[in-house]
């Protein structure tokens, strides 16, 4: 097994002999930390429940119950010996929520309404979860269509640029003209000439995802060792095989870099498009929240959006790790 990506103090320790011992090596010291995680959250629950709020905040008891549940779950996880690597983070988060609760909900040190309490945030999820979820689904739907089309087109155009002189002659100038333009610069125009704002946003998302994917696919295909083609050709391979079974897999590491970059640009384009034109999605929700000075809603939407983005990036890396399992080593997301 490979060494853990984020070494935790309790998992990797130096024995007196100077060797690095993991897991079984330091049985006397190791199991302690995971057992602290649960109590850290029980502490947060206790503070939330027993210490009177500084103002009339909603859902204080529900929040205490939530902290308590998390504490229980962490304790069970510790008992199952599944918590070792994540224990320091679980503890830090529990203490962090405790501190936040004390500073804002109990002592009210920071100015409202810009700084909310944990219960404010929880209240948004409890009362407005339907609209938040709906916005999330809208954003995801927009992304899926726009990014999907852009990524597929990007790979196809990139291969064309890398393999065909005539295609390159005609398409390269267009790519050079349009590609570097930030997709959001086309937003006003797109909303005018494309009657459906949803369609316009999808087109721009496709552009956002397509450009980096195109360029990196192209560079990947251009960098394929010509000997790879010779090997297949000497066995009678035709163009179709050379493109799909030689150029494409050989360029795959580069293609994934392009897909990753395209995803980033797509996120930015998505938010701006939702703020400016599409009357749905997390970007729209956020703007609505700002308009009504509903700061907890904004934080909640930000949290959901960041979970969405990191989730999609994680998904992309999972796919990449699977497709590129032949590579010697790869970045761990």
């Amino acid at each position, binding site marked *: 097994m490979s060494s853990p990506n984020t070494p935790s103090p309790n998992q990797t320790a130096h024995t007196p002999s100077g060797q690095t011992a993991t897991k079984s090596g330091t049985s006397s010291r190791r199991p302690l930390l995971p057992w602290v995680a649960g109590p850290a959250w029980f502490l947060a629950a206790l503070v939330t429940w027993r210490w009177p709020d500084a103002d009339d905040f909603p859902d204080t008891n529900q929040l205490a119950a939530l902290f308590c549940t998390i504490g229980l779950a962490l304790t069970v996880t510790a008992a199952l010996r599944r918590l070792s690597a994540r224990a320091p983070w679980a503890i830090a988060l529990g203490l962090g929520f405790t501190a936040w609760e004390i500073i804002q909900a109990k002592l009210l040190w920071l100015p409202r309404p810009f700084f909310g309490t944990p219960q404010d945030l929880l209240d948004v999820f409890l009362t407005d979860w339907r609209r938040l979820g709906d916005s999330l689904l809208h954003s995801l739907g927009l992304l899926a269509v726009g990014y999907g089309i852009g990524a597929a087109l990007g790979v196809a155009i990139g291969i064309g640029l890398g393999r065909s002189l005539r295609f390159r002659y005609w398409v390269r100038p267009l790519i050079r003209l349009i590609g570097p333009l930030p997709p959001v610069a086309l937003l006003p125009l797109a909303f005018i000439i494309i009657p459906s704002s949803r369609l316009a946003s999808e087109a721009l998302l496709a552009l956002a995802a397509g450009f980096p994917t195109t360029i990196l696919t192209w560079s990947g295909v251009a960098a394929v060792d010509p000997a790879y083609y010779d090997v297949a050709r000497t*066995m009678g391979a035709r163009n179709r095989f050379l493109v799909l079974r030689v150029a494409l897999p050989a360029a795959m590491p580069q293609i994934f870099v392009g897909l990753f970059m395209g995803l980033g640009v797509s996120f930015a384009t998505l938010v701006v498009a939702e703020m400016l034109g599409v009357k749905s999605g997390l970007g729209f929700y956020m703007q609505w929240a700002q308009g009504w000075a509903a700061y907890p809603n904004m934080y909640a939407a930000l949290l959901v959006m960041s979970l969405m983005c990191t989730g999609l990036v994680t998904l992309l890396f999972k796919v990449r790790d699977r497709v590129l399992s*032949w590579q010697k080593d790869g970045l761990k997301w």
Partner: protein
Amino acid sequence: MVTTPTRIAHPLGLELDHIDHGYMIGGVFTPVLDDISLSIAPGEFVALLGPSGCGKSTLLRLIAGLEPPHGGTILAEDIPISGPGPDRIVMFQDPTLYPWRTVRGNVALGHDIAGRKDPASVDAAIELVGLKGFERAWPHQLSGGMAQRAALARALVNDPRVLILDEPLGKLDSLTRLTMQTELHRLWRDRGFTAIMVTHDVEEALLLATRIVVFSPRPARIIADLPIDLPPHRHRDDPRLLDLRKNILTQLGHSADW
């Protein structure tokens, strides 16, 4: 012991007729092959020797059909070669295994291209080159010698009628080389394909070939064409072999060095 596949039916004979070839290098046309005529009988093992950069690899590319010659024709059984084909398989100096395919996937490449499923022959080829147990390994997990063996298996799986070898053992350490030379020789005798091998190692040529063709510096011309009338099982210190070696090195302009 490794099971020996049946001898293939038809090794291919080749007729090279006044081949000329060249490349544009830095805007200047550079002749590389100059009037090469060579008749290779089915089942021969021809070794091509010549100074580096003279055009040996180029000649192999033409025979493989990867490029058409500028002048002259190459006939395979009286039919002009018009492109690459699985009856003429090249084994390059580098193994050039596809890193995204396992050993097994690499060896099965020819089958995939032909749209044929024949796992048994893939297994047989892997076993033949001594890579059994490494079917699922990725190329980066192989040593140089193992990768070259995998490339040999990938070539053999196509049952080539001509095996075209471009310094196939050039980058191997000397001990691995010796083993691979023996195996190559055994394969050639068992399978009966025609072999055309470029090598820079005179001794290797003398051990394996039935005929040695020596080229001049670029543009390559044939300056010697020597049949090697020695028994198939040769010994490295056979005096006849040493005589031939001296002769060839003299042809290559290294009379003082041998």
